[in-house]
């Protein structure tokens, strides 16, 4: 974290989900329901344990980034694990990052 912190950096959690393209809309619907304040979606390709391209129309994977509180990130991760880990190409990772306007990402 910035030493001086004159800008008032605040720590929130960044969750990154990489999943096959087919799951995109479903995952975003979950995120909406779980009350995140927003998300960012990036087209990507990849190789993993499955590494199949089923949705040959729209490209391979999406990377979804979500800034949220630690609790919300845990709830999202639990949901993804429950729904998609077994049968779909999906991974996720989380880390702490510093943001300005920290409240923005901690919607009730």
């Amino acid at each position, binding site marked *: 974290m910035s030493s001086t912190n004159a800008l008032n950096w605040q720590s929130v959690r960044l969750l990154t989900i990489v999943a096959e393209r*087919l799951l995109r809309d479903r995952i975003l619907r979950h995120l909406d329901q779980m009350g995140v304040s927003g998300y960012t979606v990036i087209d990507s390709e990849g190789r993993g344990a*499955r590494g*199949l391209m*089923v*949705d*040959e*129309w*729209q*490209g391979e994977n999406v990377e979804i980034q979500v800034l949220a509180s630690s609790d919300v990130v845990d709830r999202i991760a639990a949901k993804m694990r429950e729904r998609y880990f*077994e*049968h*779909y190409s999906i991974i996720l990772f989380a880390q702490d990052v510093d943001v300005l306007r920290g409240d923005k990402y901690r919607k009730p």
Partner: protein
Amino acid sequence: MLSFDLLTANLLSPIVLAFVLGLIATSLKSDLEVPPAMHSAMSLFLLLSIGFKGGVAVAQAPLDTLVVPILATIAGGVAATLFAYVVLRRLVRLSTIDAAAVAAHYGSVSAVTFIAARDLATRVFGDIEGIMVAILVALEIPAILVGLWLGQRNSRGGERMWLSIREVLTGRTMMLLGGGLLIGAIAGPERMQRVTPLFFTLFDGVLVLFLLDLGMAAAKRLKDVRIAGWRFVAFALAIPLVHGVLGVWLGTALGFTPGGAAVFGAMFASASYIAAPAAVRMGLPEANPSLYLTAALGITFPFNLAIGIPIYLSVARALS
């Protein structure tokens, strides 16, 4: 059964040659690439074009000539799915889920195989029935629904089943093929004339580009063939012949011209690799996608494109 002139006419067509070029480029690890956006643009264009052309044809056909062929098609599609399922369970010994997933693909239809068959048929026999596009639309969906039902009937998934069905019916293939059909039929031949230069005149050229791309995709799928086992490969080569010949016979019985019957057979022989994979992936996630993608795109599509289509034409000629 396969006449030599048909085989040559087919293998030397730019469409087939472009597919082969794609296969070769990928095998040589060339850096040749079709951008994903171009792939989607071409799919969209081809499906909408097929729809438009069919719609114009349907607008000119008396509606009652459509009823019997469409009903026969739906019945045939369901029968083909069930037959494939039984073969996959008994002879290939797949699990229930995998058999249902693969059967959905082989009961459904590949639009590109349809086009390639129509192409050769028109060159050999002259113009074919315009209603074939309506038949394409009718053949696409039922098999997928049957496949999902076969795979899900023993599991909890009532809700999931309905979600999948909803998705198939509102999926892009249906929107473009079905929507294009409606637009073509509503606007009618005269009003559609102004879009003819793009959607009809350029069609064959775009198809060449699309097949170059499919060749590259098929080559990637072919790598997985070894994992599939010989029984499965045999299935992917034999079932199109069975479905195809029975389809030609049914088409002849329905009173189609020889060209129409051949295209009808080719549709039954083909396996979907656009609509079915997406629907099956969501509706039967437990099924192994390697199996159905490799079979449909890696084996059956090239087989039909190179050898199958001339065979169905030869059969149609013999039966007529």
